[in-house]
Structure formats: structure tokens, C-alpha cells
């Protein structure tokens, strides 16, 4: 994972990551369907979706703000590509989480740029859910207290020496798990894509724009889960990494399938309570670990 490779390799890795991420989303859908006793789509459905949208007629709605409407798709792909490269080069965790947080802006951009009321409500809900990232930073702080660095490579090295952080800092892992859960479709916190808003913020994006969004989603899923594994399990060889990611998506799918979607402000309140608990935990860690 930490090996440095040439430009073409990088692009190949990027494509593989995207497709694998989309596959993970497909597995996610399938498992949820099976738990709910539905047949569900095939697991490569999300990949097909992306390909299908790539060849469809594309337009920009007459009411939209055209530059933003298109620009935000490019930004979405751009930031997650950057996050992916930071991940494989073992860069700073803070950069990845910064990008994770800025994904929110992409949601606003998608939602508000079209002028459609449905996507607008999706965008407004995305603002409402501004609390979902806060547990993340507390868990980052806890990790920093243990490893004394925020470089992914240093964190992985720490785990090689001291064992996985999943055991050492279990609550931090739980907090990050909730953060990833809030970005998964059909989950308890995915209020931005609630069915009463048609498709939430992505309602109006069609054709190639939607394909771009799907690519971004695939990459995002891959990066988030890979970061979770890297930060809490440590360095893994490629087969184990893939197994770990599939295992993660199974757990996430179970969590999504058995919980109802919450009302927007309830979801925020729960995330904030999690943050508060994490703050208490971080304070304890700070006092125990750092004399």
C-alpha cells in the first residue's frame, strides 16, 4: 500500500479503486436487500449504473447555474482522487479528513445548483448534518495522542510495533465507524438521500454528470474504508486488504439494514452525543497516556 509507483500505475490503481468501491456499494445493497428478504440487484449493479449513465444523453437544466452544476462534479472527483493519492503515499491523515469534510460542500453544490426544490432540500439537509464530522476529529485527536504523528505511514508503523489501534483505542474506532456509516447510502444517518426527496441532492444530475458522481462515490467508499483499516488495523497485504474491506462493508450493511432512518435533527443530535462521549474519552486518554 505504501509503495511508490509511477504515473501509469497510479492511474491504474485509481481505476481499480473506483471499480472496487462501486462493487463494495453493490455488495452493500445486496446484503441489505437479503436481510430485508428482497432479492436485490446483482452486486455489480453500481458499476453498470455508472457505465449506463456514461452513455446517456446529457443536459443541464434550464434553471440551473451551469458552471456550478458541472464544476461541482469535477471538484467531487478531484478531491477524492487527491484523497486517494494521499492514502497510497501514506500522507497526512488530516488532509484526508479535511477532504472528507469538504465532501459536504460537494453535496451542497449538487443540491443547490440545479434550482430543483427536491435537490435543494437535499442540499439544506446536508447543511443540517454538519455534525457528522465532529466525532472524526476527536478520534483523530485520540490517534494523535497515541502515535504522536498524523502521517498514515507513521500510524501504520506504530501499529506494527504496538499492535492494532482497534484494540488500543476501541472507542475511537467506533466513532470513526459511525462517521463512515453516516456516509453510506440507506443508513440511519443518510438523511440527505432520503426517499421523500426523490434522490436528494443528486436528483437533477443526469447522464455523464451522474456517472461522475458515481465514480466519486465508488472512490469515496474505497478511500474511507481503506483509511479505516489502515488507521485501526495497520498495514495489510493486498488480498487481506480486500478481504478486510468486504468484511467492513458487510458490517456496515448490517448496521444500515437493521436501523431506521432518523429525522434530520435527531440524527444530528445523536452524532453530537457521540461527539460528547468521544470528548470525555479523549480527555481520559489524554490524562492516562500523556503524563
Amino acid at each position, binding site marked *: 500500500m505504501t509503495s511508490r509507483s509511477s504515473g501509469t500505475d497510479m492511474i491504474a490503481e485509481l481505476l481499480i479503486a473506483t471499480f472496487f468501491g462501486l462493487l463494495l456499494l453493490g455488495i452493500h445493497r445486496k446484503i441489505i436487500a437479503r436481510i430485508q428478504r428482497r432479492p436485490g440487484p446483482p452486486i455489480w449493479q453500481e458499476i453498470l449504473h455508472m457505465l449506463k449513465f456514461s452513455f446517456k444523453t446529457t443536459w443541464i437544466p434550464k434553471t440551473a447555474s451551469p*458552471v456550478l452544476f458541472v*464544476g461541482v462534479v469535477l471538484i467531487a472527483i478531484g478531491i477524492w482522487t487527491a484523497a486517494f493519492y494521499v492514502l497510497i503515499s501514506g500522507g497526512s491523515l488530516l488532509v484526508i479528513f479535511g*477532504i472528507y469534510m469538504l465532501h459536504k460542500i460537494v453535496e*451542497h453544490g449538487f443540491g*443547490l445548483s440545479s434550482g430543483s*426544490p427536491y435537490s435543494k432540500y437535499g442540499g439544506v439537509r446536508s*447543511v443540517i448534518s454538519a455534525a457528522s464530522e465532529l466525532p472524526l476529529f476527536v478520534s483523530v485527536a485520540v490517534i494523535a495522542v497515541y502515535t504522536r504523528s498524523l502521517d498514515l505511514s507513521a500510524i501504520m508503523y506504530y501499529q506494527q510495533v504496538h499492535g492494532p489501534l482497534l484494540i488500543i483505542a476501541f472507542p475511537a474506532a467506533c466513532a470513526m465507524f459511525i462517521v463512515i456509516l453516516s456516509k453510506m447510502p440507506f443508513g440511519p444517518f443518510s438523511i440527505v438521500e432520503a426517499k421523500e426527496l426523490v434522490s436528494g441532492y443528486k436528483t437533477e444530475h443526469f447522464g455523464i454528470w451522474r456517472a461522475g458522481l458515481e465514480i466519486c462515490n465508488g472512490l469515496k467508499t474505497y478511500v474511507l474504508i481503506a483509511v479505516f483499516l489502515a488507521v485501526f488495523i495497520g498495514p495489510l497485504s493486498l488480498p487481506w486488504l480486500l478481504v478486510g474491506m468486504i468484511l467492513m462493508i458487510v458490517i456496515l450493511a448490517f448496521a444500515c439494514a437493521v436501523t431506521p432512518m432518523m429525522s434530520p435533527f435527531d440524527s444530528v443530535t445523536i452524532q453530537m452525543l457521540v461527539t460528547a462521549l468521544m470528548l470525555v474519552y479523549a480527555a481520559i486518554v489524554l490524562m492516562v497516556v500523556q503524563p
Partner: protein
Amino acid sequence: MIDLVGGVPLYILEFGDELVYLTPYTITLFLLALTFTVLALISQPEKQIDIAFGGDAYRAKEISVDEMRFRRFMAIACGLATMGAMVTGDIFNFTLFTAMVGITNVGIVAAVKSPHVQDAAYQYGLVALAATVPLFAGAAVYAAVTGSLSMIELMKGTVPAVPLIAKGMLMLGVIGEGMAPFYAAKAEMFRAPGAPYVIMCSLSSLLIFLRVVEIIMLG
């Protein structure tokens, strides 16, 4: 506490005692702010559609040219303030940029003629104004305890450790500019038409929050 949180400074620009410096982390944030500022500059606002639910009636809201110009100006000012806050290497300068983000955020939506949005903007403005108190107080405690306001000095560790309360003040000040749980008014402000501009409101507070995380870890 932690070495080089945002990476090694790649470039330092000197403005007297206030240094502007770039690290991989701040460059990432700076570029995002820049991208969205350019977007606000070149993109037209969308025509928001209102639907009367239960019927077929709908109408598009138009933004007058004058209003658009003013809000674009505010959005660009907000973008510049955000960029400044991303690269500044001085604690007090950072708080000033944050205060500027607060006031420009109010400006972006204050020109909207919807009473609901104006009410939300007013409530947000009150919190933004109150947030300057912990912000400035935090910066002042930083100065008193360390005898310096330079982040470079904090990074080098040449100054005494910063007390937790100063970090808390700085954090609460930034959170007051529009992060959870004080974001309710901001979410209502998003109902205003003019997507490229209102997005700036949220982007600026997220970016400033990300920056303050780095600053807090420095000392």
C-alpha cells in the same frame, strides 16, 4: 505535542511579524477555497423553482442584477477571507479573518428579500458577533502565555506550552461561526436562492474549522 501536523512549511512569505506559510495541508485547503471563489466569480445564480405541493403550479425565482452583483461581491470577499485564514501564520490574524468570514456570510444572504432568510441571517450574525469574544480572548491568552502569536514559533516549540483554555476559546469561537450545534440559522440561510454564493457560507466555516484543528494541535 505532535510534530508538523500539516507537514513541513514549503514556503514562507513575510509581512512584518506576520508570516504567511504554506504546508501540504494548508495548500489543499487554500486551493479549495480558491476553486470555489472562482466558481462564485464566474457562475450565474440558478433560478430556484418553487412548487406549490399538491398542485401543478410552479414558478422560478429570479435574482435582480443589482442583488446578484452585491451578493457576488460578498461571496468573493468571503472567499478571499477564507483563503487568508488558510495561509496566515499568525493567531490574531487568523481570528480577524474568521471574524471577516462571519460578517461576509451575513452579507451574502442579507440582501435576500425573504423575511425568513433575513431573520436567520440576523440570528446567525448575532452568534458570529458573540463568537468574536472567545476568538479574540483566545488569541490574547495565546499571546500572554507564549509571548508570541506566530504559528511558526509554536510549531518550532520555542515558546511555552499553550494552556487548554486558550485552545478551547479559539475552538468555540470558530465553531460559533457556523459549525454544529450552532448551525441551525446557517441551514435556514441556505434556503436563499443563488447557489454559488450561499455555498460559500458553508465552505468558509468548514475550511476555517479544518484550519483551527491544525492550529490547536500546533502548540
